[in-house]
């Protein structure tokens, strides 16, 4: 950093130099405070808490007991794997549904309808997660709109419970996070010259070839960045799986909540929290390796 700032300041008189340095410090300070106070310190605290064991009231010892517990109890790591695989499924579904929408907004819609469509995508964000989840409950519960409508039309004879199964949880999650897939996709596809697609056809490619060899590789930074954000949000989400999946949705965040709040076992909760962070980071790292992208070429860009 020292050498970087020196380079910027070279050629200025001392007064200007001080002013530039001061404004740099003032602008950088909130960011540094945020990172240190809200991210670095709490996580150090979490790691410390997770690495101790209660041996007697108010007496703690350094140990790996929490992590050993996690490995030895299948229900714990099964929940983590289940959360991971369902989050991956949500990510894939969000990509498959979001890509055509993003392509339409970026390439097919006219200039004016583009803004309107984008706004339409944003509208659900004005309502809190909680209210949106209750909206789904209103629609899908046994006495809800869908069930009643099906009975009225005579398609079914008994009320149906649509809530509290995995399909509903996945649908609810896709609905919650799809916007975060669409936004980076629109911004990368927007930058693609239409002539590129036309060149793809002109040189003899058919629709699937152009999609596979030109559009998707071009949109790869957006795809990867959308997938990272969506995966992280899904794996770390709490409200939607609990409300739509019920108490048995076995989402890993629920496990963490239980350790902290119900059992008051902060050591184990901290360890789980750290494991979730480690696990999702690992998946993201694998995803980046497989797609040949880097963090700076994807998330940093969009």
């Amino acid at each position: 950093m020292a050498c970087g700032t020196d380079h910027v300041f070279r050629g200025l008189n001392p007064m200007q130099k001080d002013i530039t340095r001061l404004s740099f410090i003032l602008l950088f300070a909130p960011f540094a405070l945020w990172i240190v106070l809200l991210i670095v310190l709490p996580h150090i605290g979490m790691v410390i808490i997770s690495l101790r064991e209660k041996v007697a009231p108010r007496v703690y010892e350094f140990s790996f007991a929490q992590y050993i517990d996690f490995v030895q109890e299948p229900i714990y790591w099964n929940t983590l794997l289940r959360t991971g695989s369902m989050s991956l499924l949500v990510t894939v579904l969000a990509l498959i549904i979001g890509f055509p929408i993003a392509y339409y907004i970026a390439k097919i819609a006219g200039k004016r309808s583009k803004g309107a469509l984008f706004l339409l995508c944003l509208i659900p964000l004005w309502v809190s997660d909680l209210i949106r989840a209750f909206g789904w409950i209103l629609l899908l519960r046994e006495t809800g709109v869908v069930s009643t409508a099906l009975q009225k039309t005579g398609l079914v004879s008994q009320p149906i419970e649509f809530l509290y199964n995995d399909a509903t949880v996945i649908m609810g999650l896709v609905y919650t996070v799809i916007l975060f897939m669409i936004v980076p996709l629109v911004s990368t596809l927007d930058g693609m010259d239409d002539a590129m697609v036309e060149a793809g056809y002109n040189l003899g490619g058919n629709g699937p070839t152009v999609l596979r060899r030109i559009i998707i590789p071009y949109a790869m930074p957006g795809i990867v960045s959308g997938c990272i954000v969506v995966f992280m949000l899904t794996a770390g989400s709490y409200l939607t799986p609990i409300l739509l999946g019920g108490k048995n949705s076995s989402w890993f965040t629920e496990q963490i909540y239980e350790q902290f709040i119900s059992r008051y076992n902060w050591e184990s909760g901290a360890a789980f929290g750290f494991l979730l962070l480690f696990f999702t980071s690992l998946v993201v790292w694998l995803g980046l390796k497989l797609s040949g992208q880097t963090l700076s070429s994807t998330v940093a860009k969009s």
Partner: protein
Amino acid sequence: MSAEFDLECLSVSKNFGSVRAVQDVSFKIPKGSFFSILGPSGCGKTTLMRMIAGFEDPSSGDIHIKGKSVLNTAPNKRNVKMVFQHLALFPMMNVFENIAYGLRCRGESTSEINRKVHDVLERIALPDVGKREIHQLSGGQKQRIAIARCMVLDPDVLLLDEPLGALDLKLREAMKIELKLLQHQFDTTFIYITHDQSEALVMSDNVAIMNDGRFEQVGTPQELYHDPRTAFVAGFVGDNNHWTGKVEGVSGDRVTLLTQTGLNMSGHMRGSMQATQGGNLTLYVRPEFIKTRKADAQTEVSDGDNSLTGKIDSLLFNGANSRILVRGPGQELIEADIVLTGGTDDLKPGDAVHLTWPAEQTMCFAA
């Protein structure tokens, strides 16, 4: 319907709503020639090209390639390749993959693809760039790769949509010559779209001047320059001095006239147009046909020549293409080419000069 013509357009028209972008355009392009479509922005030339490539459907008319109508052929099935304005090279593929793309779409074997790509890179004199990424190439190299990417597919017609527009002046001059050489080497029909007349005149065997959705004139560059058929062509191709005037006397295609600025001139009607007594005319005189002498030199003006005396307003020095602006008796500014030697005899601003030019080079059109 002979296959001597690589491309034929028969009364092609295209309307966008009420806008008539292309109106009743017909032309034939012989095998292996360099054909340019020259026109100002918005004249419909890009629309015409997109119809040939298949990205737009004509509202009426027919397009034949190698004697067969291609109206119902999808763009990816036409053997017409296109070099786009901004080239549209694929940034996520390297040079080799860019060129191989079309061959892979055709499903050719790997060994065949390797051979053809190396062959075409050899021909554009860039044999070692296959492994490079697109962003590592210079502007001129990108240009050649974009052409190679099309030529490797051995197209019937290659369309070029102002591909030199993004290059700087020096490179553009070099690429003009190179394009012409490449066209000879590949012996394929090139259709070149541009608004830059020097590109069109230098490279083409034939040029079509397009204006307002129509072809004004099709001919060799020399024909267009020396024998324009319409006032638009005369004004658009080359530099001009331009007057408007009224006909005072007619004998054959020779007219005498009075310009609005009050000059008497004689000129020739062009474009098989008839002059009528008292009719309005537009007339054009190219700067290189105007002879300049210092006014103090006692020289006789030969019969039939137009002449006037004026004062040099400014001198536009540009090496061999230097020019003067002369303030004429009607206060109009007249451009004339001159030779500057750097000696003391050179003309200077403020000098009184005598301008003469032949009636044959005074191109008149009925307005």
